[in-house]
């Protein structure tokens, strides 16, 4: 008993070397960046060109930078978790006690899903989607900037405890009550979690509104839905899911916050509350969420495999219907995350079968990808390495997913390390591989130069091999009865050797990450040699490749009608005579209001977490004032003159 109490006492945080290291890294990093900007005299540039920009290409880059920084933090967390489990399964104490270990995996899961995967996704969508559908902008440029700032606020809140000390939630990334309720988690940790996710989630919802509208309303003339590139289709599916499910998340979190802050009883075990309601709500969002992430990855791979096979995508119509089917089905399967709650056999069987049905359209997509390569001219570029790796890992993950969707089998596998392996299989082998492939593929379009091929291939191979070495043992541990979220296992269970192997896999993935960083630095230093002057480095098929790399601020100088599915591929066959008369183009002016709202949203969250009512109220008033100000601002566009466009276009000489 006494030992336990001292364990708790040392958790007050401040003396902990792990936390201290994080504090130094974070604060030091911020100061260093600020210093560099000051020395280079770049504050004005940063302010006008980036922070206040409403250009989706700039916003996209900011998403990518933040997401990569969070990937690094998430990876450090992951490394600590596995190291602890490796020591803790061999009979050692390790360096993280239970509570601390739980905080780390809660942060890890939340970071990776909300701030890494979602950040990469919105980054890529911002940079590529408008170009691909032949649009000059997104439907709501200001809203887009606001979304980004709310996302950044979420990042800020989840990292705040590292700077000010204190605890984070120790509940798992979905914070089930009653554990996350005030009785069992009295500290501010869960509140940090709630508000971080809540505010970032509202940003995601606004992005959903934005891109959904953009796709439906801003497609180039002639681009019917059935001529739309598959990536755009996949984003449409994903954003539809965002629209329908993020409101559920918002409500669930709001009710949990009411329970915690105002002692209400929505999800408590007593006084009429019902924790099962929360679990239903959170998964009614949570399951679609994993498809929100994977659908764009499907779209990315569809573009890549067609381009690098120099062949049309096989079975376009099937692909579209598969996306629609997956979108629809992902709403009606959430209960597979808690078959073990004790619903009756009819309910479990219904949700189990609905779940496995998703494997059908998913399987169809795999076959269509395979037959896109069949009788093509396949070039094994770095993007294709990611793709082939994905085919193997994703198929494996789909198989284990179907096993999990059989309720009686899930009774054995639920909450086990087998489940952990399944979803990392999908999230690393599917989502991460997909976004990495997309980033290497579109990198020249985003930045004007290519990424070094050799380093990229080596990185992709490290990830693929590392993933297998890191997670096949985790599947085996699941079959041996290993449970998730344990910081130690009795040595007599014999888990230790498999954890050691898994640890080696993590190191191999780590090598992959180092190679990627090296690749990025090398490519930046050699950007002249790797420059993409044509705007079409891979012999692409869709409209984004028809403009310079990087694309000009207005994207397209002319809005020629679209006649084909692979519009640009067809245009290249019969180049049109190029008699151009450019017109003036209006684009949105920058605005700092998104950032200002973000700042006060952050203050609001902190005030709620620390129960300072007046700051919370004041923040709401100020945010409302900013919204009203923006709504009444009519001076929001600027014009790019035709002569200027002519100059830009002729300097690149594209078509």
């Amino acid at each position: 008993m006494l030992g336990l109490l001292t364990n708790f006492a040392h958790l007050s945080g401040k003396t902990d070397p792990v936390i201290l290291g994080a504090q130094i890294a974070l604060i030091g990093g911020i100061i260093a960046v600020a210093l560099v900007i000051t020395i280079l005299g770049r504050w004005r540039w940063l302010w006008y060109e980036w922070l206040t920009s409403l250009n989706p290409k700039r916003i996209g880059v900011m998403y990518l930078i933040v997401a990569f920084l969070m990937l690094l933090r998430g990876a450090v967390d992951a490394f600590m978790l596995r190291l602890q489990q490796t020591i803790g399964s061999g009979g050692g104490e390790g360096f993280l006690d239970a509570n601390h270990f739980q905080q780390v995996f809660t942060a890890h899961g939340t970071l990776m899903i909300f701030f890494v995967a979602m950040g990469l996704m919105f980054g890529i969508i911002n940079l590529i989607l408008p170009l691909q559908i032949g649009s000059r902008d997104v439907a709501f440029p200001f809203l887009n900037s606001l979304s980004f700032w709310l996302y950044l606020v979420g990042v800020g809140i989840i990292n705040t405890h590292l700077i000010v000390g204190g605890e984070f939630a120790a509940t798992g990334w979905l914070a089930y009550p009653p554990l996350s309720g005030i009785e069992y988690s009295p500290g501010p940790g869960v509140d940090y979690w709630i508000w971080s996710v809540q505010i970032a989630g509202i940003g995601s919802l606004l992005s959903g509104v934005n891109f959904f509208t953009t796709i439906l309303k801003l497609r180039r003339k002639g681009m019917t839905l059935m001529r739309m590139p598959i990536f755009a289709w996949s984003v449409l599916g994903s954003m539809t899911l965002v629209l329908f499910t993020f409101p559920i998340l918002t409500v669930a979190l709001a009710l949990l916050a009411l329970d915690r802050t105002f002692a209400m009883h929505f999800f408590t075990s007593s006084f009429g509350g019902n924790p099962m309601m929360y679990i239903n709500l959170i998964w009614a969002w949570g399951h679609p969420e994993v498809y929100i992430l994977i659908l764009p990855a499907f779209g990315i791979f569809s573009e890549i495999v067609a381009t690098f096979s120099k062949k049309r995508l096989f079975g376009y119509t099937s692909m579209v219907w598969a996306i629609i089917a997956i979108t629809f089905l992902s709403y009606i399967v959430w209960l597979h995350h808690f078959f073990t709650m004790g619903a009756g056999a009819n309910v479990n069987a219904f949700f189990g079968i609905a779940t496995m049905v998703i494997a059908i359209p998913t399987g169809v997509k795999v076959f269509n990808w395979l037959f896109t390569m069949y009788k093509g001219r396949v070039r094994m570029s770095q993007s294709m390495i990611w793709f082939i790796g994905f085919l193997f890992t994703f198929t494996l993950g789909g198989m284990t997913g179907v096993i999990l969707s059989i309720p009686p089998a899930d009774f054995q596998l639920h909450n086990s390390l087998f489940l952990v392996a399944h979803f990392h299989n999908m999230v690393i082998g599917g989502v991460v591989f997909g976004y990495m492939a997309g980033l290497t593929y579109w990198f020249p379009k985003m930045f004007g130069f290519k990424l070094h091929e050799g380093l990229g291939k080596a990185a992709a191979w490290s990830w693929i091999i590392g993933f297998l070495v890191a997670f096949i043992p985790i599947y085996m541990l699941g079959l041996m009865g290993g449970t998730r979220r344990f910081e130690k296992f009795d040595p007599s269970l014999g888990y230790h050797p498999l954890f050691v192997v898994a640890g080696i896999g993590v190191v191999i993935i780590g090598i992959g990450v180092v190679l990627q960083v090296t690749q990025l630095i090398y490519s930046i230093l050699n950007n002249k040699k790797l420059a993409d002057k044509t705007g079409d480095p891979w012999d692409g098929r869709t409209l984004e490749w028809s403009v310079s790399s990087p694309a000009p601020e207005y994207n397209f100088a002319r809005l020629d009608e679209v006649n084909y599915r692979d519009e640009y591929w067809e245009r290249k066959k019969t180049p049109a005579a190029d008699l151009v008369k450019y017109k003036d183009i209006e684009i949105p002016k920058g605005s700092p209001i998104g950032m200002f709202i973000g700042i006060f949203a952050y203050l609001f969250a902190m005030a709620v977490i620390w129960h300072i009512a007046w700051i919370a109220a004041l923040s709401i008033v100020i945010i409302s004032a900013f919204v009203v100000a923006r709504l009444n601002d009519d001076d929001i566009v600027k014009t790019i003159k035709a002569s200027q466009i002519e100059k830009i276009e002729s300097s690149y000489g594209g078509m």
Partner: protein
Amino acid sequence: MWSKIRVGMVAILIGLIAIVSYRYLSGQTIALLQPKGLIAEKERDLIYLATVLMLIVVIPVFFMAFWFPKRYNENSKNAEYLPDWDSNKALEAIWWGVPIAIIGVIAIVTWKSTHELDPFKPLAAANRQQRIQVVAMEWKWLFIYPDEGIVTVNHVLVPKDVPVSFEITSDAPMNSFWIPQLSGQIYAMSGMSTKLHVLANSTGKYEGLSANISGYGFSDMRFIAEVVDKNSYNDWVNNINISSSKFGENEYQQLSIPSVANTPQYFSLSQNDLYSRIVAKYNDPTMIDGLKLQLRSSNFHNHAEDK
């Protein structure tokens, strides 16, 4: 030449991994694949069946994912190239059809097995059903044998070949009650009672644990699930009844104080409706009689901070 060497190296590597994992695993308990109970056996068979059925699709996919990019590589001579070939209704019918058929079979199996293996469903067997009530506490398991009048902590003994009916609740955050070698898990939730039916068919000591995160001591919520033959079981019950102290509400309050890694304890039950009162107090917080709802955990945390 190179590619042959590469394939050879990969083959050798896979072979080595197979041998090493076989040597290693053959010395270990692979709980889910080595069940000691009827339910766990059937659940394992489902895992096998689903795996085999899906391999019908997965193996060809792996093969094509390996072969196509090789065969149709831009450098490979005289491979056919059809840049505009983008649909073939017959082929597409196959790869809509085959997965539909396979999932169809798995779906039928799912429907049947989900009903057959519903944890709430009592098992038909010649022997009389053995009742055991389970309470998840911070952070230990309490087992009440209402018919035998005994209570244990972190040790549950069940007779072999007798259908056991567990009734499960929680006086703590949600937990999940799991004895991998006997059957799948089910949640333990406050104010509710879930059920799990198992039938152990071989004697031995098995791991039991909580599979759902429930706070600081969660990973120490392990218990011994022991299966013995009927006679030893009766002796065990009698011994506890004779030699152990009484367990009533006061003892329960005492045990409710959060603690970690409790060693097994044994008592004789002095209050028959203990379990139902633990369930009921969450639904009727005004219930008096010493079992008032307490915010134990927050007291616990406050304690910790005082130190």
